[in-house]
């Protein structure tokens, strides 16, 4: 598929606040982007007209109840079936921060046996409260996730996190089982890492939210639904990086671009 024909849909809800920078980043990649209010989405749009859906960050519906919970229910009721079809067809869905929370709340992630009725994981309160900081995440997927195929295995990417609820957890009694399944189905995609590239091993601040097994991002068993807590759209340009001033001039791009470009490339190859 020709890149300029790729259509990216960025749904937004009241309280979504990362849609414009996410749109800017995709526009820079040469694809078409539409930011659409969820109300308008189910009234006037057909999801199947799009090639990529990106649920952006923010505090949808104030994150009252639980982060992403209300927006997830809204999507489930209004566009649930369409969204399932979109995913079944192998079209890519990306959830960033609040978008990741939505995908977990709606049962799409980890989605061990397809979409679950109840969330199988939680993105719970950080032990240190809201944290805005740059972190390193290591690409650990072994090839199941087609959306990160362009990112070299074991590559360490630098991106900021900014969340108060992002501590990835499984139910205590199923922790081992679920973790094993993540490995078996190659659903782990990003894990928090230290500056030397080793895993954070739960150590603060490298693992900023205390996530189980340093999990920063996972995909569904089919690999076309990806959610992560860090913000690639805030690490897209070189001038957004925290350390460039030491070098004198900013590089053109940051690591966030690698991820978004990889998703676009997947769609290019696919059709």
């Amino acid at each position, binding site marked *: 598929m020709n890149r300029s024909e790729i259509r990216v849909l960025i749904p937004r809800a009241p309280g979504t606040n990362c849609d414009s920078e996410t749109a800017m980043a995709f526009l820079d990649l040469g694809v078409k982007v539409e930011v659409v209010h969820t109300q308008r989405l189910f009234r006037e749009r057909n999801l199947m007209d799009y090639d990529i859906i990106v649920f952006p960050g923010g505090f949808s519906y104030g994150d009252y109840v639980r982060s992403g919970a209300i927006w997830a229910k809204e999507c489930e009721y209004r566009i649930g079936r369409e969204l399932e079809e979109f995913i079944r067809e192998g079209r890519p869905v990306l959830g960033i921060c609040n978008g990741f929370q939505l995908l977990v709340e709606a049962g799409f992630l980890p989605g061990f046996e397809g979409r679950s009725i109840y969330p199988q994981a939680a993105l719970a309160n950080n032990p240190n409260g809201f944290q805005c900081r740059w972190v390193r995440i290591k690409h650990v997927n072994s090839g199941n996730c087609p959306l990160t195929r362009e990112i070299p295995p074991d590559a360490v990417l630098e991106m900021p996190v*900014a969340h108060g609820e992002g501590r990835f957890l499984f139910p205590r009694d199923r922790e081992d089982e679920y973790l094993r399944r993540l490995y078996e189905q190659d659903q782990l995609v990003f894990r928090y890492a230290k500056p030397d590239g080793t895993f954070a091993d739960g150590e603060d601040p490298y693992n900023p939210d205390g996530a189980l097994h340093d999990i920063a991002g996972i995909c569904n068993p089919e690999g076309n639904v990806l959610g992560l807590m860090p913000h690639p759209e805030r690490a897209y340009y070189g001038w957004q990086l925290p350390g460039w001033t030491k070098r004198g001039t900013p590089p053109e791009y940051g690591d966030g671009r690698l991820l978004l470009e990889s998703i676009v490339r997947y769609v290019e190859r696919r059709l």
Partner: protein
Amino acid sequence: MRRVRRTPLPFPYHLIDLRGAEDGELIEIAALLGLGLSLEELRSIRDHYNSLGREASDVELQTYDQTWSEHCFHKTFKGLIETPEGLVDGLLKTYIKRVVEELRPDWCLSVFEDNAGVIEFDEDHAIAVKVETHNHPSAIEPFGGAATGIGGVIRDILGVWADPIACTDVLCFGPLDYKYELLPQGIKHPSYLFRGVVSGIGSYGNSVGIPTVNGAVYFDEGYVGNVVVYAGCLGLLRKDRYARCVRAGDWIVVAGGRTGLDGIHGVTFASSELTWESEMVSRPAVQIGNPLEEEKLKRAIKLIGEDGLGSGITDLGGGGLSCAVCETAYRYGLGAEVWLDRVPLKYPSMAPWEIWISESQERMCLAISPQNLEKALRIFEEEQVEATPIGRYSEEGLVRVYYGGLKVAELDLRHLFSPPRIRRSTSWRPPSLEDPIFPEPQNLEAILKRLLASPNIASKEEVIRSYDHEVKGCTVVKPLHGWNAGPSDAAVLKPLGASWRGISISSGLKPRYGRIDPYWMAASSIDEAVRNNIAVGGRRIALLDNFTWGNPEKEDRLGSLVQACRACYDVAKAYGTPFVSGKDSLYNESPLGPVTPTLLVTAVGIVPDIRRVVTMELKEEGDLIYLLGLTRKEVGGSEYLRLMGYIGGSVPKLNASRTAELYRRVISAMDLGLVRSCHDLSEGGLGIAAAEMAFTGGLGLTLNLEGVLVDEEMRDDFKLFSESNGRLLVEVKPEHRSSFEKLMEGVELSLVGMVTAEDRFRVLGRRGTILDLSLGELMDAWKTPLGGSN
């Protein structure tokens, strides 16, 4: 009371007969209705109703109370002040606004007129900026008080059709380890206030999605009784969307949250002193914000602004509808008719006057022409924001308010906006303070580490990390710089995708100097704000002033305020940096006495190309370190003396014209690419600034104090920790040495050190090596108290 009559209507509505009332009766009426009006003001209102020949309604008197409050009308800054040097005809006019009037910069688009100051950004865009105080509410309920402070200042930016893109917060608390036994009744502990305020700001700003990029946290005993919360916001707008043309016939539309009993008499509360009873009496004046409502409102206003559908806009802040409608009508020479029953309420059975003056959060008041009304209302609906036309602007200068088919108020705007001018006198005498005499400490290493860990110098990482400073993805220079999270001098934003032009935001705050001399305190605050901005390459700087002072009816408080205002004019004029907006908060008094007089100066500059921004971390070994500016034995009010247990008397002064020239040269050197890093010298002076540059850059530094340019022989500790104004440290490549020194000819310049590859921070003094510490030791000391988890 016989002069107050409840009408037999099915809703609470009172008529008050002021005609011929005596002073005692006026005071009684004011107390009964909860009005904060002075006797002189009450007399003026009585005379007005005498001439009208009718009773006043409660709605009318409440409107006067709101409009004439210190909070809304700034009586002190507009009043007449007798000083020993003569009569001052309005502090605002004489000292603050005069700078911009004399400089006449063509880039100032709207100054002291709107909710926010508006200055040029580039050919097509303008910057809107406003800083507010929210001290009183935060003292009573820190979370809600601080959160609604942010909410209010964001709406000030929406109130000039701008898109809010960054927040700035400066907070002043009592010492976190203050002894509980010493707290008077009704005063909350500094650490409780600190936690509440910080989480309130984070919760609101993060949820609305506006990065908090700049700020400060300051601790001083003088804030135990009066916490100080400054909330600022900066926005961007297209110049051609800056619509202000309200006409008769335009609809008055209330949009956003519903109106309730919360925030009644907020301005009255804010314009009085705090007492031990404030907790009980004024708690209802403080509110809890709903950031979700504000986010939706922000979206809708942005869309309406882009489509040019509104003819006027203002936020519903202090005084609620009464102030918004009356001020808008008065400003455009109009009147208005308002039907209060149409205002959407949180719950029924509010009295008309309550609806009229309620300060419920997350509401805006728009003026929309009849032909645009439908389109605008549709946008609100799509963004799930309630918006209701509640009245129309009319031709004549009268505001008529209706409820239940009855006219409940008819206000003559000419009278409403000419309150009696206050006339006050001052008496300020400088305190007799002198520098202490004490021997130079032997172990300066320990002193440096203790200073790094002292509350006003140590990292505020724990606070800063709890605010999202990256959302919107336009933060170039972040509050915590680099992976080592050092202290940036100013934040720099790149607000437009297609342009490299940036905005630099910085602050200056020197409360401790105010105890010695308010004039030099204000001068130092301005210099610090400007200097911080210069350090990142900011230029064409605009200033904002925010005064937090005690009760201006007391002569000494007012006297020191006049001193500070004088410095504002003198320094801002010499620097060519006009004030474009400001806000004062007076009556900050508690059972512990007046607040430490505090002037926050916020500076907003332009960085022409963010790829050439200058930051504070050391860049490369072998580079030379220059100190710009003259070091004097100015330790009065310094952090060093505080550590030693003194206040001192030698407050830092400022030669504004020389310093302005120095800053111009620094900017030239930056534009020629000669400056690799630059850091401002403030609390803790040379020693602290140099240490911060070293550990942030992860490079060693050797400083030679013998090279420091001084005006008199000085001890090493004073050279290290003097806080003389107008000084910067800059890093220059050795090959640029001659061109840099040539460019700096004629300004105070001294070569004081060199960057090394060693992990050492070394200082050479009169006795040889007086300091030799590893970077890790320095950073640990700096990060320990509030350093978060690094």
